[in-house]
């Protein structure tokens, strides 16, 4: 690599001879003279344009960077939310919220015995597996007691299920253990 290559003429004299310079000057010299004011005006205009372009370029770069930074912030925020994790199933239907207040045996707590007792009431009305119509006297009696939990006008197995689900809700029982 350090070997000197013979065919490159490194010592070639690249200086222009004064004669050639003089000839070129004569050949390309303008035929008229440019007044210095015009010269200055052209230079000023060129400078103004260059400055304008420079500022436009800087502003554009700033905006672009802020856009990149904003996009990065949005991506980071989206990742921090962890959108891939979906919330687990919850039992927050309005009916269950209502069922929370249902204490069939009025012992101060809602447990499976409330659902059991309601189921027995329904069965003792002789309508096992069927719905109690609110127009029947038994149905009206049960409805009056506030046992139509889902408010569909019937006291049936669906109401029993709501009471039972209310009894096993995790957020209601903050831990009996």
């Amino acid at each position: 690599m350090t070997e000197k290559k013979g065919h490159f003429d490194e010592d070639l004299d690249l200086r222009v001879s004064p004669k050639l310079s003089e000839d070129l000057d004569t050949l390309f010299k303008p035929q008229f003279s440019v007044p210095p004011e015009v010269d200055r005006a052209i230079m000023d205009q060129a400078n103004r344009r260059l400055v304008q372009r420079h500022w436009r370029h800087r502003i554009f770069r700033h905006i672009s960077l802020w856009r990149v930074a904003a996009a990065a912030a949005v991506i980071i925020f989206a990742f921090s939310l962890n959108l891939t994790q979906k919330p687990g199933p919850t039992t927050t239907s309005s009916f269950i919220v209502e069922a929370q207040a249902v204490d069939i045996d009025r012992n101060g707590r809602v447990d499976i015995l409330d659902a059991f007792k309601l189921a027995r009431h329904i069965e003792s009305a002789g309508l096992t597996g069927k719905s109690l119509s609110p127009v029947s006297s038994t149905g009206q009696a049960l409805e009056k007691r506030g046992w139509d939990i889902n408010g569909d006008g019937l006291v049936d197995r669906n109401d029993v299920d709501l009471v039972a689900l209310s009894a096993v809700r995790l957020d209601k029982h903050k831990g009996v253990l």
Partner: protein
Amino acid sequence: MKKCMVISLVSVSLMLALVYVKVGQAATRIGPKVRFAPLHIYLDSGNKSLAAYQFELKATAGKIKIVGVEGGQHAAFTEAPYYDPAALANDRIIIAAFNTGRELPKGRTRIATIHLQIIGDAEPDYELKLVVAADADAKEIPAEISFEKGE
């Protein structure tokens, strides 16, 4: 120019930090050993017939996730009991069931089976509390609750 560089550097650093955290989380998610095992729950109501029960189970040692709940052994309790679906993928659950029929179990009977995902090598332990047990007349009865670990 300096400001731009700082902004870019901060953004890149934040992204890298986030990626590092996510990769770490993924690694720990894959890392621990996982196995599945059932936990059988028994209730002994003595000479009284069992018509309704409610209990709570909670893991006190080890890391578990509840993945499913199955009914019991006796025909009166074979159907899946009541439980909060939010308990799935959790380590605590409240389970309850009742039967208004006349054919009810007496003595010691398996009332439910809880299917668990056990994470890690630590052997889990559980705390079990009977909330209530009742006979066919919906009267509370004394009963003893216990569990057996299945394979």
